[in-house]
């Protein structure tokens, strides 16, 4: 009855097939089976949020989910941040923000903070302070008093608004390109703006 089960996890875009016991937590599968130790175990009780990862785009606590429950899903961890299009091959704007605004001291909570921040900015690119504080309310930090973490996420939000990614075409902001463009404006993303089956930039939400 202790049979291991074969599961497939796509972590940061790479598909992994692994054998796990049903009682293996997702965070243990990520850290021990896949050897990706960026995702931290803090409290081991579901309170601290250091183990936060994105499962199919949504932030979850990987210490409160068995790995078998994540079978077939897309998981994003801190290790994949530099490979995201908005990172432009360098540090992700969120990581840059944490560096510039001193969003960490000991760094233990940072991977979870980054994933919660990422989930927030994916959904709401221009959050106010209350929205940021709500988004990181499941992540505990014992060093910073949160002030600089809020500033770090604000930094990333500003950075993402100002710096177009390679996927956007680069060089100028979408708004500038829209102002200069004719009716056939195309941000380059399918089902957005002027792209295939797209609509108006002013109406779309760029998703």
């Amino acid at each position: 009855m202790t049979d291991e089960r074969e599961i497939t996890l796509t972590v940061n875009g790479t598909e992994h097939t692994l054998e796990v016991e049903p009682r293996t937590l997702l965070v243990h599968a990520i850290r021990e089976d896949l050897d990706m130790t960026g995702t931290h175990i803090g409290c081991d009780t579901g309170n601290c949020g250091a183990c936060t990862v994105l499962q199919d785009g949504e932030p979850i606590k990987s210490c409160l989910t068995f790995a078998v429950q994540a079978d077939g899903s897309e998981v994003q961890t801190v290790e994949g941040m530099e490979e995201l299009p908005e990172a432009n091959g360098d540090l992700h704007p969120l990581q840059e923000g944490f560096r510039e605004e001193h969003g960490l001291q000991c760094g233990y909570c940072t991977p979870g903070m980054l994933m919660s921040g990422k989930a927030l900015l994916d959904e709401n690119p221009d959050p106010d302070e209350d929205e940021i504080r709500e988004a990181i309310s499941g992540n505990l930090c014992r060093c910073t008093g949160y002030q600089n973490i809020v500033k770090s996420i604000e930094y990333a939000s500003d950075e993402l608004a100002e710096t177009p990614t390679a996927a956007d075409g680069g060089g100028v902001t979408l708004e500038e390109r829209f102002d200069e463009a004719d009716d056939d404006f195309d941000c380059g993303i399918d089902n957005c703006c002027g792209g295939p089956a797209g609509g108006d930039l002013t109406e779309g939400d760029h998703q």
Partner: protein
Amino acid sequence: MKAARFEHHEPSTVGEAVSLLESFDELTILAGGQSLVPMLRFRLARPETVVDINGIDELDYLEEDDGYLKLGALARHADVQESDVVDDRYGSFVDAAPLIADPQIRNRGTVVGSIAQADPKGDWGSVLIAHDGEVVARGPDGERTVPADELFLLPYDTSIDEDELITEARVPVPADREGSAYHKLKRKTGDYAMAGVAARLVLDAEGRIEEAGIGMTAVDITNARASDAEDHLVGERPSADVFEAAGDFAAQESNPESDEHGAASYKERMISVLAQRALGDAADRAGVTKRRATP
């Protein structure tokens, strides 16, 4: 700490799940797992078998249908927050969902799982009581509904049998001139309630209270109804004085224990305050023009 070893089953239909419940002893049902997974890991629960219902697509819904707001067993707390159906008419749901735990936990935890867990500190049980809701359970002998008042027996214990699965929680679609609210006291984000009150009011055409529902959180061995407070409200016009008296009835009906968060007398006082605030919001919401349920 790791959970003790268990056998993991993932049925894909309710029928399959029920046959699994019938064929095993020492089992537990896993939905969102946000309370159960830590209990398994600390070995407070050591089931031999876990029936994981997350793959049962037919349980993943939140809709208005047949005169009810129906929440399938896989509707997450976050689904309530994001739903277009759950609008101001369901004020207590709108209030309660964002006060539960934190964003990560709301993405996984389910409303029905929280009700089935029957933790007296759970919020949804009080909402279910205030709305005169019920749960639908499926077992080997078919389906039955259990009203909120008959559901909660003891902490972590309900009148649902071992071989039954709660497939749905539901509350009647609000009437015209109905409003509800939920107020909760907690030390910080992520904490369970120290005390909480769900209140629902239906006004008649003259503005008098025709029907009242009040459910209380964390102040008794289960989520509890404040029936004396409800009785006091019916027939009255909403006012601060009427709500204060109802709040005091609710406080008398509550039965909190002193703990590290506060003395019993403090919690009783808080029940009165929270009830008055929830009743005030419910009355405001009962007075606003509301969208009709679409047929």
